[in-house]
């Protein structure tokens, strides 16, 4: 870990982080305000009217509690897509662009190991993901406590966010691995953004149910079983750990590849 480079990376990402935080704040505030503990929410009316459409974007509540409501309306789409976008943009900025433009030269023309450079840039990305998910967790808790004191099962909500964190760390791993592997930014961005996006689309198709349901076995998004986490299913916890372990494997592979590859800079 090189702290000078880490500081530089954080300085370079905080603006982007702020934008994502603002978007998440907006969604959380609007959606939480739609919850009505006694009558069911306006969103539930939508879900009843258009079950297929709402299911595609993961909005099919399994529980009438507040935590189930948040899970259905925020953790089926918003908290999947926005942090994912952050991972894609972040790795592009931290690795791909430096290799593509050639500014990586200055990071390596110094007595700093390639492993250290890669690990530091990774740490910047992980910090970003962690900050984003922690912010969402805090935002959710504070928002609910103000509007519906005592209604939110905070333990389950934190567990749900831990699950999202593991998923996003895994997605970040895919992006990071691609940016460390491909010399051509076209492939680094194409594959790095393409694989998670494709995974998400397959998940949406599987959500639509019917004959496509088995498609869920073709995407790693299935390992983030938000319904299972809310229902207290132990299998869901194991799946979370699988994602986390997968992320670690992706990171290590990426760092090894980056250290051994030819750089045309």
């Amino acid at each position, binding site marked *: 870990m*090189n702290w*000078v*480079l880490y500081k*530089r990376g954080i300085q*370079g990402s905080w603006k982007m982080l702020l934008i994502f935080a603002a978007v998440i704040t907006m969604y959380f505030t609007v959606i939480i305000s739609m919850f009505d503990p006694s009558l069911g929410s306006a969103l539930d009316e939508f879900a009843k009217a258009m079950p297929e459409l709402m299911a595609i974007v993961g909005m099919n509540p399994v529980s009438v509690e507040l935590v189930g409501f948040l899970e259905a309306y925020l953790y089926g789409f918003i908290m999947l897509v926005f942090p994912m976008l952050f991972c894609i943009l972040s790795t592009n900025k931290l690795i791909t662009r430096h290799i593509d*433009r*050639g*500014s990586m*030269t*200055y*990071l*390596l*023309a*110094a*007595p*700093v*190991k*390639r492993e250290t450079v890669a690990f530091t840039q990774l740490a910047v990305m992980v910090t970003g993901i962690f900050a984003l998910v922690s912010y969402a967790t805090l935002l959710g808790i504070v928002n609910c406590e103000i509007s519906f004191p005592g209604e939110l099962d905070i333990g389950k909500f934190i567990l749900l966010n831990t699950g999202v964190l593991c998923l996003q760390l895994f997605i970040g791993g895919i992006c990071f691995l691609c940016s460390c592997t491909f010399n051509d930014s076209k492939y680094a961005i194409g594959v790095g953004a393409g694989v998670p996006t494709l995974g998400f689309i397959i998940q949406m198709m599987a959500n639509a149910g019917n004959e496509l349901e088995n498609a869920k076995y073709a995407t790693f998004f299935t390992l983030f079983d938000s319904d299972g986490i809310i229902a207290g299913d132990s299998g869901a916890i194991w799946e979370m750990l699988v994602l986390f372990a997968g992320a670690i494997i992706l990171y290590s592979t990426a760092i090894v590849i980056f250290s*051994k590859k*030819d*750089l*045309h*800079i």
Partner: protein
Amino acid sequence: MSVFEIQGLTRDYGKRRGVFDLSFAINQGEVFGFLGPNGAGKTTTIRHLMGFLKPEKGYCSIGGKDCWKDRDDIQKNLGYIPGEMVFFDDMTGTDFLAFMSKYRKIQSNNRTKELLDRFELDARSKLKKMSKGMKQKVGIVAAFMHDPEILILDEPTSGLDPLMQNRFIDLVLEEKARGKTILMSSHMFEEVERTCNRVAIIKNGKLVAMDDVEKLKAEQAKKYVITLENEDAAAAFASEGLRVSGVSHNQVTVIVKNNIKELISVMNRYPVINIVTPNQSLEEIFMHYYGGGRS
């Protein structure tokens, strides 16, 4: 004792691009000119020395350390000016130099200040708004600020005005006097002539010539373009037994090595209107010496 050692270095990009079985060594305290036309393999060689590329065959070392395996160790004592200046876009020059200084863990910034003064560089503006020459100066400061023992300079004066080119040459001469070992690729004859002990020329990835600069200078062939009154005079002039490399209309191009007096005496007998010595590239000058320069 040799500081740089390149032994049978090979990297084949196909279509005769890359470097092939390249071997040379550079001694302690030597300034070594590394010349060749574009695409000859200079940058590829330098990338191997910097540890960016792993040799397909052969090996290279700096200060006895393997350029691939011990790259970060080598970098402690190495300064590098890349052929192309690309920085982090959103920084000012001052920020960048401060970043590099901390990144490299340099204790004192006196050297940086001295270099900024020497090149009259005010680095406070944004890097992406800087002119090519200013960026080049930032790159020079970044390469010399930690006072390295070894320097790899890839076309270090490109984009600099003649005054600054001279200051750069002075800087290299000072470093040379202090015993630094320098590998420098260049297209500027003056730069190489004034600073280098030896030069190597590579072409199509192969070493085609390597010799002392003094020796090359003594053997240097110069080109003169003589304009005569008319085409007949030009034709007659061309058949005087001088080494003629071309005739077009009323102009004759003559190659002269040591026989400048002979040229002058011939010119005296003809209606010469003008005489020009066109700028010759370094490669051209040296390749004449080795014959077969034209391909």
